[in-house]
């Protein structure tokens, strides 16, 4: 969340006259939009738009941007309280980027081969996912909530995360270890930090707060607390779990 701050220096003025329909949708526009997308968006949303740190864009209808105009606004102004920043591209570039994003959802995504019902069992028992992740009102708060995850992330990304979760750890779920002057050691998920204090959630789910003056050492672990399921689940179980998560659209 800290890397968003500089963007806020530029206040984003909302003009009153955004057209309803994208005026830049030619093949050349989409091609230019792809170039812009690769530089600015692919880092989080993935080169083919099926999500990563950012949402899955390779869907026929975007949950937050069903209309051209709302997609334009999101690219221009970002989404408050999320990691999605705004952009200072000019109107034509914004529309070209939107045209390319729209095209991502027009190609069929990779078919989901697993059995979602069987995947629900893997999720609850063998995977023990609820010990860290929430689904609805159940589960833990150590990892990101999985409620509605299928609407936000594509199957390929979900599979990659389960197999090798350490590849990309979101900022809000950094694992830290600290040692207090009294000799106590604690590990948890960093919730907040400044020059003088740090707040974390321990593995029992309880929030903890420390003055840095009372701490001898803080180590930010580059890894994640999530186990890699490569080899722990059979291919069938893995595909079933992915099918379950990909179908988890949250409360409608």
């Amino acid at each position: 969340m800290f890397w968003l701050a500089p963007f806020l220096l530029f206040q984003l003025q909302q003009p009153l006259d955004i057209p309803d329909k994208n005026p830049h949708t030619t093949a050349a526009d989409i091609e230019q939009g792809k170039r812009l997308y690769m530089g600015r968006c692919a880092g989080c949303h993935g080169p083919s738009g099926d999500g990563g740190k950012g949402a899955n864009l390779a869907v026929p209808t975007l949950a937050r941007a069903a209309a051209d105009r709302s997609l334009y606004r999101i690219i221009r102004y970002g989404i408050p309280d999320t990691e999605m920043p705004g952009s200072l591209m000019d109107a034509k570039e914004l529309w070209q980027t939107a045209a390319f994003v729209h095209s991502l959802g027009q190609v069929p995504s990779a078919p989901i081969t697993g059995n979602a019902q069987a995947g629900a069992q893997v999720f609850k028992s063998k995977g023990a996912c609820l010990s860290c992740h929430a689904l609805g009102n159940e589960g833990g708060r150590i990892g990101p909530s999985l409620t509605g995850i299928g609407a936000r992330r594509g199957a390929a990304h979900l599979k990659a995360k389960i197999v090798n979760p350490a590849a990309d750890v979101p900022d809000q779920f950094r694992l830290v270890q600290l040692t207090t002057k009294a000799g106590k050691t604690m590990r948890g998920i960093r919730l907040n930090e400044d020059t003088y204090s740090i707040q974390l959630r321990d593995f029992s789910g309880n929030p903890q707060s420390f003055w840095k003056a009372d701490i001898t050492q803080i180590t930010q672990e580059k890894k994640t607390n999530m186990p890699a399921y490569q080899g722990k689940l059979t291919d069938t179980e893995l595909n079933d779990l992915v099918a379950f998560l990909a179908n988890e659209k949250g409360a409608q």
Partner: protein
Amino acid sequence: MRLALLLLSLPLLAQVTHQRLLNAEKEPGNWLTYSGNFAGHRFSPLKQITDQNVAKLTPAWVYQSNSLQKFETTPLVVDGVMYISEAPSHVTALDTRTGRVIWRYRRTLPDDVRVCCGQVNRGVAILGDLVYVGTVDAHLVALDAKTGAVRWDVTVADNKTGHSITVAPLAVKDKIIIGIAGGEYGIRGFLDAYDAKTGKLAWRFWTVPAAGEPEAKTWAGESYKRGSAATWVTGAYDPETNLLYWGTGNPGPDWNGEVRAGDNLYSDCLIALDLDTGKLKWHFQFTPHDVHDWDATEVPVLINAEFRGQARKLLLFPNRNAFYYVLDRVTGQFLLGKPYAKQTWAKGLDDSGRPIRLPGTFPTVEGTRVWPSVAGANNWYSPSYSPDTKHLYVATRESGAVYYFGNAEYKAGEQFNGGGFRSIPGEEEWGAIRAFKPTTGEVAWEYKLFTPPYSGVLSTAGNLVFGATAEGQMIALDATTGKLLWRFQGGGTVRSNPMSYQSDGKQYVAMTLGNSLYVFHLQP
């Protein structure tokens, strides 16, 4: 009875003459001009609050702004009354001891004000019996210091074309100096002087040339017409040279330099203008042909010191481009320049102070990583110089950015950026308050901050440096050693500068933290 007491204890409002502004140090209880004095020192000679007792600093009162815009004002204090500006373009007079409102000026603005980076204001100026404020719809307004009534209101420029005013005016002699913002709208930048009594324009210095002027050759084709070079941060004045020293902003468009080949004068410059005529005496360009939006709109600091064995009149300038500069302020001669924060864009500076650029640092469509970031190693917020420790204090940012190249089609009143930027994902940005030896740029001490700050510093005769963190803490450091002596969590990102004043024999330190103005004193 109580009313009578109050009336007795409110001091008489005396006129703020140019003589008083010139000798601001002689009345340390007041804070008469944006930087405390004309030399840009932001130093308070008050020493009731010291390194020995600052641990007992506690809020005396808090004033909450109704606006959720950034609260960037530096308060002025004159004889028991504090004058602050509030976003977007309001002015409020407060009693310095109680924090109670004496009068308010509330400006009605158009619905679609065009200003790039927040409808903000950094403070007012005072001269005679008038208080001056620039507005985001690009007017300069003079208010009666006793009542807040409008005495005159002049249009400086048209806001529909992206001109706005966020800078605190500078009152000097019989003039009000006011800069313009709009560097992201392709404006033609300028610096104006108005007659303080009447509001009549005395002179205008264009920071971007007209057709046929020699500087127009530093812009390809007619690109000078959208050259920007805004003047949105308050400068300094030296009565001995009678020169105004003012920084200028980025060339337009910000990140697409292809449409404006050349050095792009007078963008990213320090300009020295004759106060009486507005004529250019000299200029120094820090970042010729800037493509990273590194406005040279920092506060210049003027000191007289021995430089390599010779007594000289110096101008100190910790620039947004991550180089620290020392210039001779009589001639503009470049004396010293060296990086003071991480930078990856220049190999160094040549003998004339011109940067030796590294290849591969220009923005691209795919994005180019460069340090420092768009916000720079320093920005509009103020440095401070202490004549006691002889250190220059600078809140410094250590961060980079990914810079993008983009289209640059000018449409009046729309942003004209030619690209954009983002933070470097996963980069551990940080910051520090650093004390520099001004004539060498050596670091005397450093106090580390968890994230880059966006607020300035104040030094005081109590051997203290006040500053703030991006997470809302105001802090006091030992000015000699950099040791932390006091801190206070104000509850919101700090984007302002501290100042100090005295009222009824008691010293106060004031700074906006988040959306409130906090005024501290020693625990009674």
